[in-house]
Each structure stands twice: as C-alpha cells, then as structure tokens.
C-alpha cells in the first residue's frame, strides 16, 4: 500500500457545519466550497513547489557530477596523449610493486534514516502525537540508558544487527587465528624437545626396550605404536605396575622404586612421542608436542612430591622448554575454576583463547577431581592426544581415561599447585582458608604419607627442585588451595624461571588489555560509519578469506 506523501489540506469541501441564522443555505454551501477550493489550491501549489524542489536538487547534484566527470575525461585524454612517446619502462616491476587498484564505491546505506526523511513526511510526522515524555526520567536511572528507549527504540534492530555482525567477525577472526596456530604449531614444538631427548631415549631403549613397548600398549590405550612386542622377564614388572595402576588408583600405594620407574617410563614415553611421525591424527601430534613439555613439567612437579630419583635428574632439562611455550594466562584464568585439575594435564593447550576454557570449565567440573591428578605416567601422555585447539572438553575424556590408570585424591592439590607454579611449585605460603578447597583437609592428611616417601629422595633432586623439596610436602596443599594466588606467590620463588614466567604472563595480560582497548576505540570510531563497515564485515564473513588487514586499512581510509 503506497504511503501518502503529500496530503492536500482541506480534505472535504463542504463537510463543515453551517453557521446558524443564514437564510440561503445553498449559497452558503457554495461559498464555503469555493473557499475550500482556494485552500486546496494553495496546499497543492505548496506541494508542487516541494516536488519540483526535490527534483531540481537531484538534477543539480547530477550536473555537478557530470561536470566533474567531463573534466576528468579531458584530463585523462590529455595525459594519455602525453604518455604515448614514453614507452613501457619498468612495466613488470610497476605492475607487481604498485598498490592494487581499489575503487572507491560509495554504497547506499542508512536509506531510511531520520535525516533522509522528506520534508512533507516530516511535517506529517510532526502533526502526530508525541510519545510520552519518558526521557525526563533519564537522570534518575542507574544504568545510564535513556528512559524512552524502553518505550520505543527506533534504532533497536539496527543495534542488534550491529552487535551480531561485530561478534561474528570477531569469532571468524579467532577461528582463523586458531587454524593458523594449529597449522603452525605442529612444526615448532617438534624441534625443541627432540635434541635433548635423543640420548636418553636411546639409553632407555637399550635398558628397557620391551618394557617401553609394553607400557605403551597398556597405558596409552594402544594409541602409541608398540616399538617392540612384549618380551622377556621385564614383562612381569610392567604388568604388576599396570595392575597396580588399574586396581588401586593410588600411586601412593606403590613402592618408591616402582613409582620412580613409572615416572621414568612416563618421561620416556613422553620423549618417544615427539619422535613418532605425527600420528595419523595430526592433532594428536600437535597435542603431543606441546603437552609433552608441560606434562613433563607437571611430572617434574609431581616428582618433587614423591620419590623420584632418576626423574628428577631429568626434570631440569624438561622444565626449561616449558616456560616459553605454556600459556600462562590460561592457568590464571582457570585458577578460579575448579578445573585446575584438568588444566594440569593440559597446560599447553591453553592456547585456545579464554572463551573455550571457561565453557569447558563449566562442562568438565565433574571430571577434574579424578583425572586431574597426576597420573604422571599416563596422565603425562594423555594430554598429548587432545588437540591443542579444541576446548578442554576433549582433554577431559582422555584425562578420564588416564584416571582409571592411577588416581589419588591426595594428589589432586599437588598437580594443580604445581601446574600453576609451572616451574617448581611455590613455597608454601600460609595455608589458605579452608573454604577454598574442601578437599584440603583430606589432602593434608594424605600428604603425610607422601612426605615420608619424599624425604628419602630429596637429595637426589638437583638444582632448583631441591630447595623446593623440603618445604613442598606440607605446602603442596597450599598451592593447590590457592590457585588464585599463584601469580603473586610465584615471585617468592627466587628462580629466574618464575620471574620469566611472570613477565610472560604479564605481557600476555597486557596484550589482552591492549586488544580490548583497541576494540573499544574501534567501536567508538565505528559508530559514525557503521553500515559500510558492517557490510564489509559481512563480506569478510562470507568470503572466509584473510582480508581482515585489508579491510582494516580500508576502514582507516574511510
């Protein structure tokens, strides 16, 4: 139905009440009709003038454009004729070097805005009744919104769409970054751990060749290729270990020697992993590369709590590569959640931006307690399979698989605390309030056992781990219970690594803040030119290309 743009004012000629006391009514009606006709003619002339004015304005703008076009054509013709004598010079280089041609097309946007309302319609709008003056209540509002927005908000749908577009573009960019990182990562971590592991791996292979294969097959759920088939008397030993793991779910129950062997084997397995050509699922390979160093660190941390002899000797080697890669921000982000347990097994994966972790944190709270821990041996390897990019939900099932292998409730706080203090666990600050960790009393009680086992082997731990050893046992509960404080407790450890870690974490946090500020600035800038930027963002979405930077440049130009 067409909208009436101009209404001639005296709608009816003679629908008026006749004044009283008139003898000749017919004449009266005639005169009234004639008067109304004159009024109608006046309004008609007004609208006619308006119509011609609009048409004239449009034609006038076109005339400007035509004149400018004419000038450009003349100039071009002149320049072209001048160019003739100078033939091609450096043509190839120019073609490749010069900036690509970008046409400045102005798209029509905001067509039905209040500013583009034609005058006659504006007059019709003015005649209408105004909405209730709810804006007088605006100064009394707490949230700063206009009062009238709750009654009628003409820009509501546009704002909704704008937010959705911005969100979609951000999501797409993050996905692209993830994909880039996924593609990049498999190469980087593979290089780092390979060099130092080779020797040990060879030695271990020589020492326990068949055992390694056996353990792999059993503990890794046959994910890892069995180097050598099961063989020799060594089988019984690994078998018993496996049985212990499966049955008791408590590493503390195992004798010290067994535990140390388990740890060593776990490390060996970890070492073996990177050497395997990225297993069929590249994700696994990726997951292996990165989680391995961190797993090793967690393993080292665990080693501190428990007896560890040979393992500790290796820990310093492994710990060094870990600080750089691991994503500290994730642990800090997750520290507040109870997911630390799962986090310990997947510190490297933290790569996935914070949003996935919180969601996964919500999903996997049930899983954490059992799997989290340690599972030094199996746990170390299991984080490998879960791909880095995917949210922690994936890690949780593999971690769950590891859980049945070995679980210790008392171990919970240990790995958590250790992971947070990635290099060695922070020394025991005062016990945090019990409310934080309901399991803390249990852990405290359970820790009495490990400390006894730890003491015999503190001497074996070289380097930075030694100082941590003695204070560690009682403090293990503390680090677990105060994950939130871990960034502040880190400096207590006077290790260069901790300082470096802190710097890394701060840097990442700073980067986040900067990103946020940039986004906010962008949002402010955007408001004036929303539609064009939004339409371009749609193009980014649907094109799925990496033109983000280009679009940003265009935004700057616009």
């Amino acid at each position: 139905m067409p909208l009436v743009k101009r209404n001639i004012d005296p709608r009816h000629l003679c629908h008026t009440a006749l004044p009283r006391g008139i003898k000749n009514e017919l004449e009266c009606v005639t005169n009234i009709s004639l008067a109304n006709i004159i009024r109608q003619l006046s309004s008609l002339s007004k609208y006619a003038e308006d119509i011609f004015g609009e048409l004239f304005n449009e034609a006038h703008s076109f005339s400007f454009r035509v004149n400018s076009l004419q000038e450009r054509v003349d100039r071009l013709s002149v320049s072209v004729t001048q160019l003739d004598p100078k033939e091609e010079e450096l043509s190839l280089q120019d073609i490749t070097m010069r900036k690509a041609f970008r046409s400045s097309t102005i798209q029509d946007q905001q067509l039905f805005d209040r500013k583009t309302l034609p005058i006659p319609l504006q007059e019709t709008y003015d005649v209408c009744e105004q909405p209730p003056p709810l804006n007088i209540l605006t100064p009394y509002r707490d949230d700063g919104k206009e009062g009238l927005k709750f009654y009628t908000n003409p820009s509501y749908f546009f704002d909704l769409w704008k937010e959705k577009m911005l969100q979609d573009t951000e999501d797409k960019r993050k996905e692209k970054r993830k994909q880039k990182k996924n593609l990049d990562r498999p190469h980087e971590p593979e290089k780092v751990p390979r060099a130092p592991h080779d020797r040990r791996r060879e030695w271990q292979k020589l020492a326990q060749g068949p055992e390694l294969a056996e353990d792999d097959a059993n503990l890794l759920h046959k994910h890892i290729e069995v180097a050598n088939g099961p063989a020799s008397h060594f089988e019984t030993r690994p078998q018993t270990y496996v049985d212990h793991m499966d049955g008791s779910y408590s590493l503390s129950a195992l004798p010290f020697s067994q535990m140390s062997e388990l740890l060593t084997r776990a490390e060996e397995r970890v070492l073996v992993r990177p050497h395997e050509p990225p297993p069929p699922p590249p994700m696994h390979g990726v997951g292996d590369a990165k989680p391995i160093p961190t797993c090793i660190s967690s393993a080292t941390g665990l080693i501190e709590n428990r007896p560890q002899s040979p393992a500790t000797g290796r820990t310093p080697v492994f710990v060094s590569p870990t600080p750089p890669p691991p994503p500290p921000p994730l642990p800090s982000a997750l520290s507040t959640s109870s997911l630390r347990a799962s986090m310990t097994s997947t510190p490297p994966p933290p790569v996935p931006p914070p949003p996935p972790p919180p969601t996964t944190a919500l999903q996997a709270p049930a899983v954490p307690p059992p799997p989290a821990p340690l599972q030094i041996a199996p746990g170390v390897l299991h984080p490998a399979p879960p791909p880095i990019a995917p949210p922690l939900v994936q890690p949780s099932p593999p971690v769950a698989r590891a859980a049945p292998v070995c679980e210790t409730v008392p171990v919970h706080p240990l790995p958590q605390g250790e992971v947070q203090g990635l290099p060695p666990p922070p020394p025991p600050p005062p016990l945090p309030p019990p409310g934080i960790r309901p399991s803390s009393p249990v852990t405290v009680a359970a820790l009495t056992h490990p400390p006894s086992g730890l003491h015999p082997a503190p001497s074996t731990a070289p380097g930075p781990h030694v100082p941590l050893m003695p204070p560690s046992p009682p403090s293990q509960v503390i680090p677990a219970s105060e994950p939130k404080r871990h960034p502040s407790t880190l400096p207590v450890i006077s290790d260069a690594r901790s300082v470096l870690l802190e710097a890394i974490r701060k840097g990442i946090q700073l980067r986040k803040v900067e990103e946020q500020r940039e986004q906010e600035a962008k949002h402010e800038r955007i408001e004036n030119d929303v539609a064009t930027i939004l339409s371009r963002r749609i193009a980014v979405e649907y094109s799925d290309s990496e033109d983000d930077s280009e679009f940003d440049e265009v935004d700057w130009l616009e």
Partner: protein
Amino acid sequence: MAGQEDPVQREIHQDWANREYIEVITSSIKKIADFLNSFDMSCRSRLATLNEKLTALERRIEYIEARVSMSGKVLPHEARQGLCRENARFHVLLKQTWKR
C-alpha cells in the same frame, strides 16, 4: 405556486450551476495533482537511470585513471582506447539527458 417555484427553482438551478462550477474546479485540481505525481515519478526514474550511468562512468574513469597513472606507461594504447570509449559514452549520455 408558480411564484414560489421560481425563486426556489432559480435557487436550485443556481445551486446546480454553482456545484457544476465547483466540480469542474475540483476535477481540474485533481488533474493537476495527478499530473504532478506522474511527473514526479517519471522524473525520479530518469534521474535514477542517469545516476546509474554516471556512477558506471565514474567507476570506469577511476579505473582508467589508475591504469594510466599507476602502471605508468603500460599500455597507453589500451588506455587511449578505453578513454575514447568512455568519452563517447559520456557525450551520448549528455545528449540524451538534455534532449528531454
């Protein structure tokens, strides 16, 4: 009766005459309004096509300018050809618009 009819009849006749007069005027007003609407619509459609052609011309000229300036002297022959085409189109467009 005849005396009564005359003035009344005269009045009625006069009234009918007046109404016819008013009717003529109002119908002509309606014709004017109708003409204004149709004129507005046709003018807008022509201006829109003109706008389209102008924007197409502008884009082509931009492209040619880019080719001529950035690529330097590459294919001046082609640039000239393009320019001639654009020039011809431009003049045709001008003639068309100002004819009407």
